């Protein structure tokens, strides 16, 4: 399998505070990687460095061999291949569900309105929200908004999907519907990097689990390795609190 993301010695500081202190990792096509760790460990920052939403302080991130943080890189073209789903959904409140999904495909991919609409309808069927196509985001529940946000990211037909704690802002009864969509996506072979606190999801869906603490990858391995036989003391301590 070919490598789609390669991270070398990635560091990040906010002012004088180090957040990432040298992260190395490689992610292969169709792989589902779950990133877990305590809050403030740098896992969200790590994810945001992957598509250049966060500027790296040092090291490099290569996506399909292209350096994300190189000034010459066409970061817009790169991002159009990397979908991202946010903790707080970030749907565009002044646009309908349909307009949210078709905006980037028509402006960036130059799809016609009809093509974009067809694609949006297919994706809404997939996330089970076709009946909400003309609704505004504030008319939807949190879980519905997040599913629309996933459809919006998928409409660009990205090769990689990044999820930044996609269920953390949801009421408990809505978590399942979002995880189900993500699981279906994983089964279709999407390459996914998921920052999450849903240990059940990580255990069930992930090919690999990365435990990050204080800006370093402390331990990584298969879900069985990490959850059942953690080698590092810090991993054990974290898991004992969340499981």
């Amino acid at each position, binding site marked *: 399998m070919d490598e789609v993301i390669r991270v070398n010695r990635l560091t990040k500081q906010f002012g004088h505070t180090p957040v990432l202190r040298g992260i190395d990792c490689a992610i292969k096509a169709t792989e589902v990687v779950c990133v877990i760790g305590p809050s403030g460990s740098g896992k969200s920052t790590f994810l945001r460095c992957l598509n250049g939403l966060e500027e790296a302080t040092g090291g490099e991130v290569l996506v399909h061999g292209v350096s994300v943080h190189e000034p010459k890189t066409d970061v817009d073209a790169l*991002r159009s291949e990397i979908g991202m789903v946010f903790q707080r959904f*970030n749907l565009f409140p*002044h646009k309908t569900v349909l307009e949210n999904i078709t905006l980037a495909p028509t402006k960036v991919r130059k799809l016609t309105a009809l093509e974009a609409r067809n694609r949006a309808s297919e994706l809404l069927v997939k996330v089970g929200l076709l009946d909400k196509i003309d609704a*505004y985001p504030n008319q939807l529940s949190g879980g519905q908004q997040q599913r629309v946000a996933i459809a919006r990211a998928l409409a660009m037909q990205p090769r990689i999907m990044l999820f930044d704690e996609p269920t953390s802002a949801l009421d408990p009864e809505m978590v399942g519907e979002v995880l189900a969509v993500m699981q279906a996506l994983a089964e279709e072979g999407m390459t996914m990097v998921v920052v999450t606190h849903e240990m059940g999801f990580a255990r069930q869906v992930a090919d690999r689990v990365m435990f990050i603490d204080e800006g370093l990858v402390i331990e990584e391995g298969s879900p069985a390795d990490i959850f059942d036989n953690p080698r590092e003391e810090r991993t054990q301590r974290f898991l004992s609190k969340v499981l």
Partner: protein
Amino acid sequence: MEQVLWFGWFRADIIAEYSVLFWRGLQMTIMVTLICIVQGTLLGLAIGMARVAESRHSPAREICKYALRWPSTVYVSFFRGTPLFVQILLIHFAVLPLFINPADGLVISGESARNIKQNYGAFLSGVVALTLNAGAYISEIFRAGIQSIDKGQVEASRSLGMSFPRTMYHVVLPQAFRRMLPPLGNNAISLLKDSSLISAIGLAELAYAARTVAGAYSRYWEPYLTISVMYWVLTLGLAFLVKKLEARYGRGDSR
């Protein structure tokens, strides 16, 4: 002499006699206000964008700071920090003659300069001063409006591969515009009232008409009460228009 007495003390005949002057003044006031609202909004948008311009990489980062953010900040500070009345005088008597002057105008000189100054001098200076002033205030409205939009909106848009200008145009500005409508409306109303200051350099708008009538008859209630009511009706109309716009563009905003 037989006089028409409407309210006893109010000599409406004076207003009737000068009705053409008031009518022309009203037209001039409306024209100047509309021109300055449009130009001030465009200028305000440009200055507002300059004030929030940022870039990550050199040399764009330095250009944003020294060529955009600094000059625009100084500009806004100056036009908000000095009286509009003084700005009008400065532009009419000092700046405009620098550019349009029969002897040695930088842009226009000779006989045509004399004509332009005589016929359109007050209009030009007034519109320029009011536009520059309004641009400073409106840029602050744009800046606040843009900065009030949640950062996640920009991140979501950029993560879809939308460029910064596209993100501004499709995502940030439409949302910011809704929040900016009330302050922009207030600004338009201020502009309308402030246009009366241009009468000081001899532009024949409403306040100038009133001054002319007051000078001719040494009567003050009639002309100034008349234009007060006219200004009031105009500002009420503007306020109504803004309310309509707000109702129309207010939907779908959840935050």
